[in-house]
């Protein structure tokens, strides 16, 4: 049994060693992975003056915020107010976006946009992200749906019209779920790579796309040296982990509170 414990610990350590090594190399005063030439902060300094990275960050933020808000807004009425029969239809519709591999979704959407003559750029990327985010927003909202719906019925028997009941009862009661949905969809969109790659068109780069472009052609410019890519990737991982931690802590506190109710 001791052996099994060490094995499990070693296996889990394997999941983290590459990330730790990458973080170390982002401080490496060399041009390539695998050789250590002393500690430096220059790759991070370079990142501060990297106009491409800043504009990619801006694009990523714009897409992620808009996609989170739009997909949550579309999912709210379906998750919080729909009747059981309607929910069955919705459930049937949202599972394929979760199951189907992203690359096939991305290719299909790209074809449709080209058929329609829709210009590829910010809006097409936003549409692509929102199409899969709706499913995740719906899933995140579902647990609070029941309570909100029951209280809304109570409000209506007390004389509120449907709209007032929704605005004054359902939305406030469901706030924790709405925040969770926003967090999850922001995260999905912010880190998305494949859907973006196929729907972005030339000239519109998000941070993951920038990482991809540079990682594919390493070593040609100071920005594409391996430690510079490691620094960019480390920065992105820190952002991801921070949001993920905030989201997880929020979810834990939310489930504790729901336990009290």
């Amino acid at each position, binding site marked *: *049994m001791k052996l*099994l414990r060490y*094995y*499990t610990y070693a*296996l*889990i350590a394997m*999941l*983290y*060693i*590459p*990330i730790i*090594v*990458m973080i170390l190399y982002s401080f490496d005063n060399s041009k*390539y*992975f*695998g050789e250590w030439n002393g500690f430096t902060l220059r790759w991070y300094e370079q990142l501060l003056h990297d106009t491409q990275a800043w504009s990619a960050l801006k694009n990523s933020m714009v897409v992620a915020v808009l996609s989170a808000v739009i997909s949550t807004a*579309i*999912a709210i*009425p*379906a998750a919080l107010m*729909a009747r059981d029969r*309607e929910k069955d*239809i*919705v459930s049937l*519709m*949202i599972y*394929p*976006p979760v*199951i*189907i*591999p992203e*690359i*096939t979704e991305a*290719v*299909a*959407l790209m*074809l*449709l946009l080209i*058929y329609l003559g829709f210009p590829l750029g910010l809006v097409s990327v936003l*549409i692509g992200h*929102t*199409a*899969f985010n*709706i499913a995740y927003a719906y899933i995140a909202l579902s647990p609070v749906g029941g309570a909100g719906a029951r209280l809304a019925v109570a409000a209506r028997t007390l004389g509120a019209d449907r709209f007032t009941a929704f605005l004054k009862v359902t939305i406030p009661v469901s706030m924790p779920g709405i925040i969770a949905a926003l967090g999850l969809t922001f*995260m999905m969109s912010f*880190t998305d*790579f*494949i859907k973006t790659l*196929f729907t972005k068109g030339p000239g519109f780069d998000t941070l993951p796309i920038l*990482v*991809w472009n540079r*990682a594919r052609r390493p070593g040609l410019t100071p920005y594409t040296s*391996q430690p510079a*890519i490691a620094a960019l*990737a480390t920065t*992105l*991982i820190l952002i*991801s*982990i921070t949001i*993920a931690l905030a989201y997880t802590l929020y979810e834990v506190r939310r489930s504790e509170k729901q336990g009290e109710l």
Partner: protein
Amino acid sequence: MKISTIILPLIIFLALFFYAPFIILGYQSFQGLGGEFTLDNYLALVRDPTYLHVILYSIVIAVETTVITLLLAYPASYYVARIASGQEKIILLALLLTPFWIDVLLRSIAIKTIIYTIGLREGYTAMMIGMVYEYLPIMFLPIYASMSRISRSAIDAARVFGANTWDLIRRVIVPMTLPGIVAGSLLVLLMSMTEFVIPSLLGGTQGFTIGSLIYYLFLSGGLWGVGAALTMIVTVMLMVFAFVIAKRAGDITGW
């Protein structure tokens, strides 16, 4: 049937931007170069040895990934589900789930640093290390779930009737975790078959898989018909398998 306006925005958005694209994709897959109806795109995938080779090669990689992750994840899932408890169990589970939050692109770059550190370069081995690294947590979860469900009394009963450790594993634990093994294996097999990022960044000249082929056919090759046919096959296959998993192991994966 009456559908209220409440769920209309969701239905319309998904119909327009998720389901309609697949109709266009299906249409494209039956289009010849001159716009006529044809089956050539599908036949090309089987006839042309280059395509067939890429497809078979991707299946080999996916099967290898599945077998290796299954062997690696199985003992660990037994430990986490049945031996670890309290604080230790929570920490181990959290550590196994955290990588899901880091995109495969970033994790591939992390693997690259390791590959270079141990003196390897991009190629088949590097790609397989990346694949196993990516899919290990995905294999772990369904097996862990079915492992957690084995009742203590089933194991005790086997012990009482004189089963040694080997018998216990072979006759009780493996059969009882079979739904988890099947679900995890199908999940990894299907997801890894269309993996695009890892082969592209770590595979070097060995990294041309179905994912890269789809990318190439659409974004640089301009062969949309064949690309659409290939994507259709992958999608339909996945939907069928997903349906089978949902039917057979629905309660375990939570679908």
